[in-house]
């Protein structure tokens, strides 16, 4: 169990995690990093009286209640600011602090639940080839994942944007959501079980988990891709002790890479560790965040 971080350290940790997310150079196969960064920046503003930050023992991210708090207080802020207006005006210091917090929450951009986009790639004689992008901001785990799936749907003959969207929403989204917590190879196998679907490629980009270094968080991002076009299996992930990989007769190959954002001062140490465990993962450094003046 990670020790909860006290106020100043909690703010610094969140700001550093936001910088790390920035430093990871995440491409479009990962969930939109700007949204995650914005939520982390909001998490850095600690509510008066609730400064301590607890983190999830499995993922290293702040616990689910922390992520939800930003979303909830963002909605409650306008009403509460009106409630304390006369107290702030009277010069009440605790109310001013609370007001500062609520204004920050009102201005925050909390993560939504998720998002699903469908885009046509092309029509084929035997169906429609398209791409589905599913973002899942699962604060309950917490896990921040983007699934990118390219497939041929034989069940669709004539393409119509609305029909496609409803088709995907109705028949496919539930299946996707159910599969989304599975590793990529398992998900691909389960998805292929649907007769009408031919999966070209499935990619799962996840930001996290987060480890602790001496001077700040180490944020990792993992990208797994499964496709019939990929030959064999190449998994480079020091965080996974064991996993089920597709066999030679599976009809598809699988790759996984994990990259890292580490406090600048600890980049060399992290690289040495990766070499030791036989990983070639990329390591990016991010600048440390100075603790607020006068803090311990």
């Amino acid at each position, binding site marked *: 169990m990670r020790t909860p971080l006290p106020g100043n350290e909690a703010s610094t940790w969140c700001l550093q995690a936001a910088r790390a997310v920035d430093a990871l150079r995440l491409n479009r196969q990962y969930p939109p990093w700007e949204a995650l960064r914005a939520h982390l920046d909001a998490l850095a503003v600690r509510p008066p*009286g609730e400064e301590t930050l607890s983190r*999830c023992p*499995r993922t290293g991210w702040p*616990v*689910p*209640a922390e992520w*939800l*708090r930003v*979303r*909830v*207080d963002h*909605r*409650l802020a306008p*009403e*509460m600011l*009106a*409630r*304390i*207006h*006369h*107290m702030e*005006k*009277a010069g*009440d210091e*605790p*109310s001013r602090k*609370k007001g500062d917090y609520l204004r920050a929450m009102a201005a925050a951009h909390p993560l939504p*639940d998720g998002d699903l986009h469908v885009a046509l790639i092309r029509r084929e004689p035997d169906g429609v080839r398209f791409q589905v992008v599913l973002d899942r901001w*699962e*604060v*309950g*785990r917490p896990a921040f994942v983007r699934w990118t799936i390219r497939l041929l749907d034989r069940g669709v003959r004539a393409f119509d944007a609305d029909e496609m969207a409803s088709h995907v929403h109705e028949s496919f989204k*539930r299946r996707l*959501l*159910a*599969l*989304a*917590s*599975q590793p990529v190879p398992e998900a691909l196998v*389960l998805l292929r079980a649907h007769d009408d679907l031919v999966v070209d490629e499935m990619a799962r980009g996840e930001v996290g988990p987060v480890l602790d270094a001496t001077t700040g968080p180490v944020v990792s991002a993992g990208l797994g891709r499964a496709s019939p076009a990929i030959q064999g299996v190449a998994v480079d992930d020091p965080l996974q002790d064991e996993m089920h990989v597709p066999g030679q007769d599976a009809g598809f190959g699988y790759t996984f890479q994990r990259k890292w954002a580490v406090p600048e001062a600890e980049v060399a140490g992290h690289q040495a560790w990766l070499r030791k465990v036989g990983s070639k993962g990329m390591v990016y450094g991010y600048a440390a965040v100075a603790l607020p003046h006068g803090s311990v």
Partner: protein
Amino acid sequence: MASEDCITDVLARHRERVASLEQLGKAERALGEELQRTLSAQPTARTGLLGRLLRGKAKTEAPLLQTLWERHEQAMEKVRALGHHVEALDRDLALLQADVERLGDEACAAAHKRDASEKALPEALSAQARAESDVAQTTGVAAIEAGRALDRAKARAWDLRQEVERSQAVEERTLGLLEVLRETRGTMERLHASLGQLHDAGTRALADLERRLSILAAGATARDLALQTVGAMDALRETLHVVSNLADENATFLDERVDALDARMRLLDAQSETEREARDEVEAALRRSTPR
């Protein structure tokens, strides 16, 4: 700060306070109604949640967890709103107490001034009577000096009477406002206790649900865990039910009290308006009748 400024300042703050309590009443009413709707929309254990949980296959686990967290977020919004209100009431009570003390000081100062002026007035009136008699009984230089003494005696008596009236007006207005403030304090203290209890109960239920959900998130899908989770949801539902009922009670309580406070504030305004008009009239009349 002059007495009038102090009263105006406290009164303005108190108007905003009462308005925000009125808003809180409306929010509590809405909360009660919304929770009733949410509660009636909760899936029953056997047909909804439990049914899905007991099917227990991995592929149903992700959406279920999401649904549970959505419920958790809805409940969390209510509980945090309660927490914010309790905290706001806490600070508002401290400010109200400071206002009560300031007004208490003002009332005491006004009473002392009135008392001193009332005590000095008989002496000033005797001096005036003596001067009047001197004027009537003397002639020449002595009469002119007696006239000057009479003018001074009348001015002194006028000032003292003015001071008595002013202090009395401040005293009455301050005491009236103090009474309203004390009544509001009673309302807020009761509300603070009630919302505090709800907040504590809600926080405990949420913490319990969070603990169980984190076990579920770790991958456990066993039947007993499913039952536990249903138990946690039931406990949360029960808490929300209590919150809903008490929120409704609070709303009714606040409606009544805020109406009463509003009427008192209007009366206070009307009183001060009438007093001011009366004082202006008296002053004008005295100015007309007083020889200069």
